[in-house]
Structure formats: structure tokens, C-alpha cells
């Protein structure tokens, strides 16, 4: 755990970058510091590994004041990823990744084999090992930056706008990669960004800072979206807060119907009868393997042959128990039926979420949204 205890950074010219920051960064979680430029988020991050020292207050790393540790020693135990990756241009990718292991005096063989493992872990081909940074794209360099930070297996990772300099598509894949890595590694990560969507996507907790270095709110993303502490946070979160919050509502509240699912082998003469029995104008068609094929409207179908002779209409699916209500809603909006097909982890259909059940789930989610006035506005470090 990292704890900021009344930390202030004041520069010689009187500028206050960080103002009495109290914040806890729980072990094994991603805590995102987010805010507009000038809010002191990068300064706060850099005080953890003593790239900057605070003017007042203390930063405790597992109950040790970081000021009592010699900076280079401290930094070798903390992974550090910066915006432009900052790879050493004169060293190969492999040697870049092995930087900290070399500093820690590991023998060359062990350092290199660890580096090679990490190269693959961050999704790069082993052939990259012998290249130089200039031969890699921005996104690849950033992956190497993450691998380098992980090389000595530090428990803490500091990431300073690591994905800001790459294009949106690459950024999204790097974010997914980080989520995947974190699920395996459980590092204590402090992540700085100015992008609220990135903060909400990645953060287990999000700390919103305002200009002048004051903490505006710290909460998990769902709470943040549902109950912004004040106008500043609300404005910073931007539009579509309600819809975005659905990403954090589990789909388990969705009632599923299995009687709307028909196999592709069904006779068309029977299908209209099924539709009448279940009182639905739409039926979901599945193949012999129980995988979804699409939607049919029995009223519009010919009366002879089987469902094989019909081209089903487009559909959307969500993975039951894994995806959010937002994904389910999205799946429903992709289908002419307005219903979403629920599948299990193997992609086999287990039922259908109808408009009625989506409606119920949305109403439930809305009623569970915390009211702004009694929301947990701030969690103080010593609270």
C-alpha cells in the first residue's frame, strides 16, 4: 500500500502543484490519478519514486517513509513507465528490458532470459529482441516500456500517461493488454492520465484532481459516474455518464428466456406456431452446436421447408455473467428484434434477454444509483 499523508509540493516561485493530498493506493489494484493539466497528477506520481520530493507531508510505501530510502535504491524497486517510453536508443530491445536486472547485478544470462519472457508477455515477437527502439512503432515501444518496468518484478508500477502518445486504436489495445497483465500480476499500479475514459476503463479506483493540486473525489468508477462529488467532477466526467455507468452494472440481474430459441432444423410450418405460443414476433435461431445464427420474424416467413432455407437477420450477443448491462444493451440495439442473445463462455446460447427484461434491469440500475448528496465524497487516508 502507498499512502499520501498531507502531501504538499510548493515550488520556489510559490506555485502549489499538490495541495495537502491524502490518498491511499491499495495493494494489488490500479489507482488512476486523473485531472486537467496543472492538477498535480504527474507531480504526485513522481513523488512516490522521489523524482520529486514533497515540501510537506509524507509518502509511505508499505509503512516506510520513502524519504528514508536512497532514491536509486527506491527506484530499482518500483517500475516506471513514461509517455514516450524513454527507451535507450543505443541498446537493443532485450537489453532495454534488462536495464534494472543489470543494475541489480543479476548475471547476464538470467537477465536476458527474463527479458525474453517479458517480451512475449507484453505481446511482442521474440524477433524484436535484437532490434533497436527506432525500428519499432510507438505502440511497440510502449509495450517494451511496460516490459522494462516489470523486468525485476517490482510490486509497484508507476505509469505516467503511458498511452497518450499513440493513436486511439493502439491505445485501446494497450489498455486491454494492461488489464490482462494486471489480472495475472496483481501489481500495485498508480496510473496518471488526463483521459477520463481511460481512467474509468482501467481504474479499480479513480482519484480526480483539480487544478491547484487538490483532490476532488476518489471512488471506484461506478460510484464516480453515479455520484460525482461536485460540479467540477461532473463536468470532467463529461456526457453520457448514465450510459457509461452501465458498464459497471452486472448482467446477472437480467431475466433470460430460453423459449424464444429455436434450432435451425425446425420446420417452417411449426415455427409460426412456436412464435404464437411464446407471444413473440421474433425467434432466435441456433445451429446444431447451439451457437447463434440470428433472428427470424415467423410472420414474414414462407410456410414450407426448414429454417435452413431462411437467411436470419443480424444479432448481438453478450457473455452471461461476464459482460455488463451496457454490453447487453448494445447487443440488443444491434438486433432488429431489440433483444440480446445471451451466450456462455463457449459462445453457446443460453437464452434471450427481451426488451421487457432489459427494461427491468435498467430500472433497477437507475434505482440503485447513489444520490449525489449522500454519496461517499472522499475517502480520507486516516478515515
Amino acid at each position, binding site marked *: 500500500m502507498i499512502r499520501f499523508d498531507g502531501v504538499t509540493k510548493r515550488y520556489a516561485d510559490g506555485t502549489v502543484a499538490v495541495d495537502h493530498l491524502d490518498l491511499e493506493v491499495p495493494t494489488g489494484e490500479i489507482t488512476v490519478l486523473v485531472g486537467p493539466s496543472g492538477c498535480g497528477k504527474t507531480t504526485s506520481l513522481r513523488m512516490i519514486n522521489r523524482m520529486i520530493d514533497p515540501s510537506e507531508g509524507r509518502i509511505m510505501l508499505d509503512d516506510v517513509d520513502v524519504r528514508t530510502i536512497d532514491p*536509486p535504491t527506491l527506484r530499482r524497486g518500483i517500475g*516506471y513507465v513514461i509517455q514516450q517510453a524513454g527507451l535507450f*536508443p543505443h541498446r537493443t530491445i532485450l537489453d532495454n528490458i534488462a536495464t534494472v536486472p543489470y543494475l541489480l547485478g543479476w548475471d547476464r544470462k538470467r537477465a536476458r532470459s527474463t527479458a525474453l519472457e517479458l517480451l512475449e508477455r507484453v505481446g511482442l515477437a521474440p*524477433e524484436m529482441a535484437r532490434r533497436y527502439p527506432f525500428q519499432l512503432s510507438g505502440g511497440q515501444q510502449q509495450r517494451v516500456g511496460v516490459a522494462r518496468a516489470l523486468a525485476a518484478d517490482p510490486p509497484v508500477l508507476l505509469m505516467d500517461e503511458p498511452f497518450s502518445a499513440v493513436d486511439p486504436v493502439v491505445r485501446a489495445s494497450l489498455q486491454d493488454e494492461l488489464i490482462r497483465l494486471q489480472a495475472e500480476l496483481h501489481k500495485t499500479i498508480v496510473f496518471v492520465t488526463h483521459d477520463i475514459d481511460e481512467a474509468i476503463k482501467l481504474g479499480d479506483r479513480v482519484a480526480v484532481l483539480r487544478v491547484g493540486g487538490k483532490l476532488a473525489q476518489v471512488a471506484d468508477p461506478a460510484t464516480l459516474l453515479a455520484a460525482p462529488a461536485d460540479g467540477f467532477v461532473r463536468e470532467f466526467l463529461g456526457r453520457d455518464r448514465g450510459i457509461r455507468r452501465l458498464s459497471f452494472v452486472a448482467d446477472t440481474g437480467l431475466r433470460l428466456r430460453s423459449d424464444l430459441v429455436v434450432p435451425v432444423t425446425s420446420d417452417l410450418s411449426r415455427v409460426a406456431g412456436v412464435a404464437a405460443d411464446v407471444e413473440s414476433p421474433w425467434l432466435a435461431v441456433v445451429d446444431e452446436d447451439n451457437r447463434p445464427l440470428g433472428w427470424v420474424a415467423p410472420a414474414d416467413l414462407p410456410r414450407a421447408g426448414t429454417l435452413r432455407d431462411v437467411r436470419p437477420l443480424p444479432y448481438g450477443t453478450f457473455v452471461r455473467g461476464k459482460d455488463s448491462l451496457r454490453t447487453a444493451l448494445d447487443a440488443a440495439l444491434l438486433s432488429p428484434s431489440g433483444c440480446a442473445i445471451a451466450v456462455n463462455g463457449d459462445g453457446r446460447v443460453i437464452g434471450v434477454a427481451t426488451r421487457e427484461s432489459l427494461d427491468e434491469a435498467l430500472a433497477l440500475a437507475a434505482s440503485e444509483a447513489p444520490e449525489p448528496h449522500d454519496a461517499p465524497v472522499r475517502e480520507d487516508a486516516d478515515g
Partner: protein
Amino acid sequence: MNWLIEFFSDPANWSGSSGIPVRLLEHLEFTLAALLPAALIAIPLGLLIGHTGRGALIVVVSANLARALPTLGLLVLIVLLLGTATVLPVLIPLVVLAIPPILVNTYEGIRGVDHDLRDAAYGMGLRGPQVLVRVLVPVALPLILLGLRLAAIQVVATATVASYVSLGGLGRYIIDGLATKDYPSVVGGSVLVGGFALAMQGLFALADRLLVSPGVSRRVRTAKIR
């Protein structure tokens, strides 16, 4: 052209204390004797000032002095003061001449290293001297070598003029040739000086290839897959 053939085919020019091999060796000696101390002073100074950011004024003053300094004047002055009993009076101006390009380029090379790179190096836990030696110097090496190269060109050229004050070297052919209206000697000496300067350039190009990381010079060694 005839003068050239005449000069290079004269066996007298190939042996003895005023033969081409001896003169070449002398020229090389003077060049190295001036370049080495200059590098030993200017490189560490440039690294130190570039790394700490303190003392940048020295670099500026040195760069300006280099432009303003009449080397030949200094040469004659020091020779008049100290005499020609040793080569020292000739070497001092050559060393003074060689310092500014090395100092300025070393300093600029270190200062010019990307800020993010320094930040990353410190952030990884490298100590100050490790940042300098393991990161800044390898990245600044092309500029440091350029400084040495510029210094070498100037020293080679000026050492030729230095023959004026009874120093050996290839300049003797030109100075003595002019004095005795021996034009084959003048032309031959000029060609030798030119060739010598080119050879020095080649040497530095080679050093560049051998010492600078392909990652810095961007010479692609491994084939690009995409």
C-alpha cells in the same frame, strides 16, 4: 602534373630526415600530440558541464575565443617568447586551437539528449555517473566524435603552417619550396597534406562505424520484418 611526377619520383624525397615517410610521421606526431591533450581536457570538461549544467559560460567563451583567436599570431608570439629549443611552443597553440570544437560538441551532445531519456534513466534507478556513462555518452557519441574530427582537421591544417617556425612535418615542403622557388616541392607537399587530411577523415568515419551503436546512428543491422 609534371611537377607532381617530378616530386614523387625523386628518390631523394623518399629517404633521409627530409624524406616523405619521415615528414609524414612528424606530421602525424604533431597532430596526435596536439589532439590528445586537447581531448583529455575538453571531453571530460564537456561531459561535466553538459551533465551538471553548471559552467556553461566556459563553453560559450571558449567557442567565441576560438573564432577570434589568430592562431598564427599566437604561434609566432609563443615561439618568440619561448624559442624553438623544444616543440612545446608550437604545440601549445595547436592544443588551444583543438579544444573549442571538442568542448562545444561534447557539451552540445550531452545537453541535447532527449529529456525523457534522462528521466527514464533516473527513474529506472541509475545513479548520476551511471546515467552519464551508460546513457548520455553513447547517445551523444556521434557529436563527440564530430568535435574530435573538426579539431583534427584544424590541427592538420595549422600544423602545416606551423612549419613556418621551423617545425618539421609536411608543411616543410610547401614553406621551403616557396622560399627556394622549388614548385614541384610546393605542389607535392600540398597533395601530401590533402591526402593526410583525407586519411584522418577516413579514420574518423571508421571510428564512427565501430563505436556508435547502430541504434543511435540508425544503421539497420537486423532486417525489418514489417
